[in-house]
């Protein structure tokens, strides 16, 4: 039985409900805390210690892991942080996602939104980061994103464990009439000097009444037993037996099924719809209109999902025209017009590149990147029941708080009246932060007379209504001095993700959103010393929705910046590795140098390779993690065969090595799929791709061996889920250049060269 019956899947599957009861006390947190959301939901005999730890009289220990588990193993890592300080072992604990609540805000995610490089730790940069973290608390963003969950949890979760342990020790000391300082803990038991033992469960009710005067001390990392070692993932068994409940698997009594047919021309309304034809499909029960901040369209309600899909097809919708250029060629022209105009803003940079370029030989290159869809394996879906002014929403979400705010506004109720139950996520990659799915689901649920309804998107709908990785066009100029990079003029045109997200989630703030640093992330903030440089963003504004795609702006600029450096190395007759190393002059760039040297050693960089075989190298610092990658390709057969990939990542501190390695590998394969073959294009105002046959990703045979090593030189902790992606496309393009002399400046590469995918 789950510990928070009201919110667990067993709860909503109707297999059991526990009485609310128990006490919430002994709660210490070093900043003024949000209320602990757990007490109202506890079963009898259960006691909460901080918003993160529940201990039952039966000695069960449950750790609340309030971040979205989408395969990145975050529930395991967050639980390990608590268990380490609590004095329990991983086999003694269970995890639960817990409710959507302000107490679970993510401060670390916003921190890196400040416009400074990660390694910049001067007063202004630190103050800005601090202010961004406060904003996270203010908005209470319980978001899983920006590879930030472990960083955010690093202090909070350990303090929660230490706080619970301290009051348990105190309770035992009272019971035995001894001083707590002589007591130790082991496997969730308190042990006294004469060998007497009390279980945590035995002490829970007394301990929960105690409070602490000051924060408990945390262990020194040298004393860690759990952290720093690979832990078995907590949710593996359910994922190999089909028992994991994803959003799409939610089943409720009397549940209806539905799908959506939204306008494929973004921002455009419907011209005509054949509702009679849809209603004639057996099983179709109703067709309802959907009008939201994220799009216009229809919900088709039926007695099963397939009937709803068939009904959507039968609707034969016609749409008004969109406000943006109708095809990719027209869009590209708009992007290039923006590049001809003044920059919207610049970030970083030094010296005077314009002046430095006068009279010198200028190397120029233009780069192009397409829109990209996320294609999470589980298509978009949600289940909702709107009854008596309250909304229950079952959602695989990276942002339950935002979903609650948006749906409350749509339905004219208070956010407190929205109960978000976070299910397992069949992939996130940034897509499941968005409000479109909860909004359409709530709009449909408002028209079912109080019956629950599960809304599942077809794959076609999912690909054609994503919040895409932005299309980008870049224009670069540089000069060399004695063969070494001297001046850089870096311009990129792209839409603002922040603005697009704000328009959908908080439209009232959209026009006030600041310059979006993500347009330049992965360029100005990289560990290189240029005598002269300028990084300029040319912001585009269209109705085409853009969003957070694994590694966000870093995936764009990681490719552009690191490919162009390779071009400069070739132009200056330099080894690409040696040139990078000599540009990383600053002491603070040391982790980058070490990562590059380590990956070069693994790949045996510089070895004599046969004609037609080549290695490419790239490095990007993103989300606080320094990642260097080498790709080796063999083009002797004509097509490009990706033979092997080596990666070295330095997140400063590795909490779970096996899991971190899995995340880097996953991010590399995600980036490789995109670099080889993915693009979203437009024609007639709509996305042309619709399913895996025209927007595919790599399968087993196309994925080369990948070797990953981890370092811990960086001074602050970095993220896991995203930083593996940004260097990949550049390393691949650079390898193709090394093997063939052909420089690829437009993604996906598959448009220009053929790949051998096995």
């Amino acid at each position, binding site marked *: 039985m789950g510990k928070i019956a009201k919110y667990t899947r067993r709860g909503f599957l109707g297999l059991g409900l526990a009485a609310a009861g128990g006490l919430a006390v002994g709660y210490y947190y070093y900043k003024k805390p949000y209320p602990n959301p757990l007490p109202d939901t506890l079963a009898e005999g259960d006691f909460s210690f901080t918003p993160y730890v529940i201990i039952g009289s039966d000695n069960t220990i449950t750790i609340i892991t309030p971040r979205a588990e989408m395969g990145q193993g975050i529930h395991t890592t967050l639980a390990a942080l608590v268990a380490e300080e609590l004095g329990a072992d991983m086999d003694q604990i269970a995890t639960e996602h817990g409710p959507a609540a302000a107490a679970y805000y993510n401060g670390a995610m916003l921190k890196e939104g400040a416009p400074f490089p990660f390694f910049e730790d001067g007063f202004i940069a630190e103050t800005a980061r601090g202010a961004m973290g406060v904003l996270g608390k203010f908005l209470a963003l319980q978001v899983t994103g920006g590879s930030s969950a472990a960083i955010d949890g690093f202090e909070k979760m350990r303090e929660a464990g230490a706080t619970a342990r301290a009051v348990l020790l105190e309770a035992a000391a009272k019971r035995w009439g001894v001083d707590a300082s002589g007591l130790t803990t082991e496997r969730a038991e308190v042990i006294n000097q004469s060998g007497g033992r009390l279980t945590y469960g035995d002490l829970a009710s007394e301990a929960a009444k105690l409070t602490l005067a000051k924060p408990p001390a945390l262990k020194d990392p040298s004393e860690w037993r759990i952290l720093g070692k690979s832990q078995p993932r907590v949710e593996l068994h359910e994922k190999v037996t089909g028992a994991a409940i994803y959003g799409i698997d939610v089943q409720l009594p009397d549940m209806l099924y539905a799908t959506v047919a939204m306008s494929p021309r973004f921002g455009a309304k419907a011209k005509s719809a054949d509702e009679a034809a849809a209603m004639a499909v057996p099983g179709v029960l109703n067709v309802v209109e959907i009008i939201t901040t994220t799009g216009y369209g229809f919900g088709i309600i039926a007695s099963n999902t397939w009937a709803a899909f068939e009904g959507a097809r039968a609707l034969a919708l016609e749409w008004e025209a969109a406000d943006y250029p109708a095809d990719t060629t027209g869009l590209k022209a708009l992007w290039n017009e923006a590049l001809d105009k003044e920059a919207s803003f610049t970030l970083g940079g030094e010296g005077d590149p314009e002046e430095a370029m006068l009279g010198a030989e200028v190397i120029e290159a233009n780069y192009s990147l397409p829109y990209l869809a996320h294609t999470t394996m589980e298509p978009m879906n949600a289940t909702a029941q709107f009854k008596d002014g309250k909304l229950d929403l079952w959602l695989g979400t990276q942002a339950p708080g935002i979903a609650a705010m948006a749906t409350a506004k749509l339905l004219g109720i208070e956010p407190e009246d929205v109960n978000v139950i976070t299910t397992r996520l*069949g992939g996130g990659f940034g897509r499941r932060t968005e409000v479109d799915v909860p909004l359409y689901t709530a709009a449909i649920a408002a028209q079912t007379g109080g019956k629950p309804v599960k809304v599942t998107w077809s794959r076609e709908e999912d690909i054609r209504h994503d919040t895409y990785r932005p299309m980008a066009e870049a224009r670069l100029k540089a000069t060399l001095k004695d063969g070494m990079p001297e001046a850089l003029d870096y311009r990129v045109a792209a839409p603002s993700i922040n603005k697009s997200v704000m328009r959908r989630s908080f439209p009232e703030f959209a026009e006030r959103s600041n310059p979006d640093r993500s347009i330049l992330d992965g360029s100005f903030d990289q560990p290189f010393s240029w005598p002269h440089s300028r990084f300029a963003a040319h912001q585009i504004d269209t109705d085409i929705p853009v969003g957070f795609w694994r590694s966000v702006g870093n995936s764009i600029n990681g490719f552009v910046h690191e490919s162009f450096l390779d071009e400069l190395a070739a132009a200056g007759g330099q080894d690409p590795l040696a040139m990078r190393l000599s540009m990383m002059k600053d002491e603070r760039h040391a982790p980058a140098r070490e990562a590059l040297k380590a990956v070069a050693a693994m790949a045996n960089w510089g070895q004599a390779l046969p004609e037609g075989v080549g290695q490419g190298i790239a490095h990007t610092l993103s989300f606080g993690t320094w990642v260097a990658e080498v790709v080796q390709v063999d083009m002797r057969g004509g097509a490009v065969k990706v033979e092997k990939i080596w990666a070295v990542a330095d997140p400063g501190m590795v909490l779970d090595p096996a899991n971190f390695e899995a995340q880097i590998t996953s991010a590399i394969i995600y980036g490789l799929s995109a670099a080889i073959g993915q693009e979203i294009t437009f024609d007639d105002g709509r996305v042309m791709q619709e399913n*895996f046959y025209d927007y595919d990703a790599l399968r087993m045979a196309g994925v080369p061996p990948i070797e990953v090593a981890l370092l811990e030189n960086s001074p602050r902790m970095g993220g896991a889920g995203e930083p593996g992606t940004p260097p990949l496309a550049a390393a691949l393009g650079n390898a193709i250049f090394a093997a063939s002399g052909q420089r690829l400046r437009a993604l996906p590469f598959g448009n220009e060269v053929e790949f051998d995918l096995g």
Partner: protein
Amino acid sequence: MELQVNGERHLVEVPADMPLLWVLRDMLDIKGPKFGCGVGACGACTVLINGVPTRTCVTAAADVDGEITTIEGLPDGERLHKVQEAWIKHEVPQCGYCQSGQILAAVALLEEVPQPTDADIDAVMTNLCRCGTYPRLRAAIHEAAGMEG
């Protein structure tokens, strides 16, 4: 119509062209087979029909003639199938959404070729995994091939 799923008989009343996937998921509440594409392109909906891996989103329920095994029917009582054990040992799943299909495809492969080479695995394991678990999938298949089962 009658369907034999994981050793149980089910009688269902559905249109002749309704795909097996939706009969299993929406009518019989068997959620192991997942919806990924609806066009036979990803393998998330894979089940075994008389041991043959079949993409149920493009298989009409009315055309099914034989014993259907979904991931729920794979363990022998409490005892997991060796492929499932190998999956846990190598910590294959990330989000896990594709894994029911991957496991059933691997079970069928090992029935046919008990000691598969990498080339055998490449040829048969065509299911999509957006989390990129392929290196661990491959290692786990080799592991399972070496296990008693």
